[in-house]
């Protein structure tokens, strides 16, 4: 039997959050954490968590699994369970709506700040804006982000200043558009980032890189943004 300790909080019933222990029979299989959650849901239908695609594409089930942020659907028990115990908490730093469901408003506000869409003031071509294979290659490792918030909520700089520091996820997207050959707003984008908080609160501790379920490297992207700001100013 696997002991699963889950963070429970129902704002209308509970005065404060508490941890509830469940016993689950995994049948000796190396299940994904999401499978275990679905088994818990049978035991207690009031348990709340987000999930959708169950294959690491939608980014709904980001949570803190035995102390490390990750997607429940693609984290096998063998990769996280220690001493036959699994501890599940909501992603840190953002307000809890109920149980493992968090309010991602602040996270999306930061995403919105970087204008995550192509800005191009040149006349639109008849069919499409073309890129060379080399130009397209620059977007690899950037466009794959699924906005699960595992990285930003693992970042202490985001914990202390979630309203001012854009966070690793937003900055990865900021660089995705700075690096895009079809975008012509590079100067405006950089001007919007040159304050002590938006980019420079990153101290390069690389928690984001450690937890990213898609294996992306926001710290590297932030380094590229810094270099672009430096090149622009000197």
């Amino acid at each position, binding site marked *: 039997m696997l002991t699963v300790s889950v963070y429970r909080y129902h704002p209308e019933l509970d005065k404060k959050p508490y941890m509830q222990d469940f016993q689950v029979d995994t049948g000796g299989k190396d299940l994904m954490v999401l499978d275990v959650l679905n088994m818990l849901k049978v035991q207690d239908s009031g348990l709340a968590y987000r999930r959708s695609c169950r294959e690491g594409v939608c980014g709904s089930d980001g949570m803190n699994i035995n102390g490390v942020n990750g997607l429940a659907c693609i984290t096998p028990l063998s990769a996280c369970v220690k001493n036959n115990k699994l501890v599940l908490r909501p992603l840190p730093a953002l307000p809890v709506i109920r149980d493992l469901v968090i309010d991602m408003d602040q996270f999306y506000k930061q995403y919105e700040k970087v204008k995550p869409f192509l800005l191009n003031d040149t006349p639109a071509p008849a069919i499409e804006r073309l890129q060379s294979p080399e130009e397209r290659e620059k977007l690899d490792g950037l466009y794959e982000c699924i906005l699960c918030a595992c990285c930003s909520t693992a970042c*202490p*700089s985001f914990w*202390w*200043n979630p309203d*001012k520091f854009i966070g690793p996820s937003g900055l990865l997207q900021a660089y995705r558009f700075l690096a895009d050959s079809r975008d012509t707003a590079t100067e405006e984008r950089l*001007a*919007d*980032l*040159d*304050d*002590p*908080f*938006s*980019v*420079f*609160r990153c101290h390069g501790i690389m928690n984001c890189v450690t937890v990213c379920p898609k294996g992306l490297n926001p710290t590297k992207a932030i380094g590229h943004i*810094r270099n672009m*700001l*430096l090149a622009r*100013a000197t």
Partner: protein
Amino acid sequence: MVTTITNFGRSGLYDWLLQRISAVVLALYSVFMVVYLLLNPQLDYAQWDALFGMTSMRIFSLMALLSLGAHCWIGLWSVSTDYIKPFVFRFVFQMVIGVLMFVYTVWGVQLLWGL
């Protein structure tokens, strides 16, 4: 973009760059001092006085002193904006650090240049 800021250089890039450059200056100064003291175990007052009497050493020391002041201000300003959430405490902390850095810098110049 966060526009209401009381940091050092009014731009994140400027502070970041100054923090790195001042760190290099402080590292060089520290290494120089340690190596100098190791190479001169029988150091006496006359030799120490002669070292700090050299113009190059005075420039180097002043550079290290200014670097220390700027480095401390930028670093502690960042720390205060991370950890001290009530505005009054943060403001007082920043004022104290700012005044202390100024006092230490002027005092340091006085000592090093023998004014």
